[in-house]
């Protein structure tokens, strides 16, 4: 639990306006996405913690309360069936649904993003360092390549190759070879 979540905190501190002089608690208090991620990481840790079964009742109770709180207050739903890599950054609150998908490390997600499988079949696979804009729907078994960028309002209906910028409904490749390290806040 500590490893991926500390990476989340690090990403959040880099994305915020003032990266220095911020305590972890203040960042947690004002960032809804971080609270949702805390609940999600706790749940994932409890799923794999076979040896520490003695803390399961308390742990699952805390997970249940935290996830309920985040879902009702901010409407961010990170299901435990989603496989989220370390260092996810959630920009705004509201309307985020991640279910049965696979997200790589150092991704960014904005508000009103829906990453779910279609009615039948597997969920989408999102590789590392992908920036997903607001109002994006990725529904169905599609693969988004590493380092690509999906602009705001995109609806992904096919596979996206590596390192491209795609936008629109349905999503078309606007610019191949787009460098998204600046907007992700990576060096």
């Amino acid at each position, binding site marked *: 639990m500590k490893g991926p979540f500390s990476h989340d905190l690090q990403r959040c501190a880099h994305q915020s306006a003032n990266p220095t002089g911020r305590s972890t608690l203040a960042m947690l208090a004002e960032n*809804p996405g971080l609270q949702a991620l805390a609940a999600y990481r706790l749940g994932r840790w409890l799923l794999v913690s076979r040896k520490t079964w003695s803390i399961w009742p308390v742990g699952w109770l805390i997970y249940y309360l935290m996830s309920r709180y985040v879902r009702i*207050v*901010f*409407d961010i739903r990170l299901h435990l069936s989603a496989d989220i890599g370390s260092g996810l950054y959630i920009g*705004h*609150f*509201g*309307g985020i649904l991640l279910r049965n998908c696979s997200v790589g490390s150092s991704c960014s997600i904005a*508000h*009103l993003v829906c990453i779910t499988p279609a009615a039948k079949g597997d969920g989408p696979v999102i590789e590392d360092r992908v*920036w997903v*804009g*607001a*109002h994006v729907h990725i529904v169905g078994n599609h693969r988004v390549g590493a380092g690509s*960028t999906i*602009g*705001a*309002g995109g*609806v992904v209906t096919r596979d996206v190759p590596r390192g491209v*910028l795609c*936008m*629109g*409904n349905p999503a078309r490749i606007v*610019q191949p070879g*787009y460098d998204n390290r600046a*907007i992700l806040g990576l060096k």
Partner: protein
Amino acid sequence: MADARFYHGLARAGKSDGPFRLLLTIFGNRGLWLLTFYRLAHFCLSRRDYRSPLWWLARFLAMVGRPFALVCCRSEVRSDCEILGDVYLSNKGYLICGPLRIGQRTIIHDHCTFGQAVVGRADGRPVIGSDVWIGPDCIIAGPVSIGDGAAVLPHSFVTFDVPAKALVKGNPARIIRRDFDNSVLRAGLQIFDDIADIRT
């Protein structure tokens, strides 16, 4: 109070009227609460008189208002944007609102996003004119201006300057009508998805 009257006129168009109904509108519209707390926060920005107790009261209310807007209205409105006159903000929420200016009598529905473009464009925030109708699930990003009397149909993504009295639709957006009169859209809170719906 002018805000409340504007909301009341929209929500109960063609229905019975009365002071009790107006009170119901004030307590039942979450967009109106959001607008009220935005006005308080904006008031705090404009005046910097640390000695007056009124300033401290308004600042405290605005501090309460931001989490309140986030939880109850499910929306965020930046306090440094200018909202001139009566504006309808949707009470269904999911409104992330950070434009430079919004004109009078503009109607903004739910699930809208106005703000800076992140991908590959210059910095700047949108300017929305007066008498504009913006449907649900719209994105307006970057340093663009929406002209007076324009209408943005639902699920569109605007990244260019929209001229006055234009009808815009699509993702990416296209102008599908010029010299379009949007008074039918702005008469009530009904949502029109297509131009064929407006005719009927």
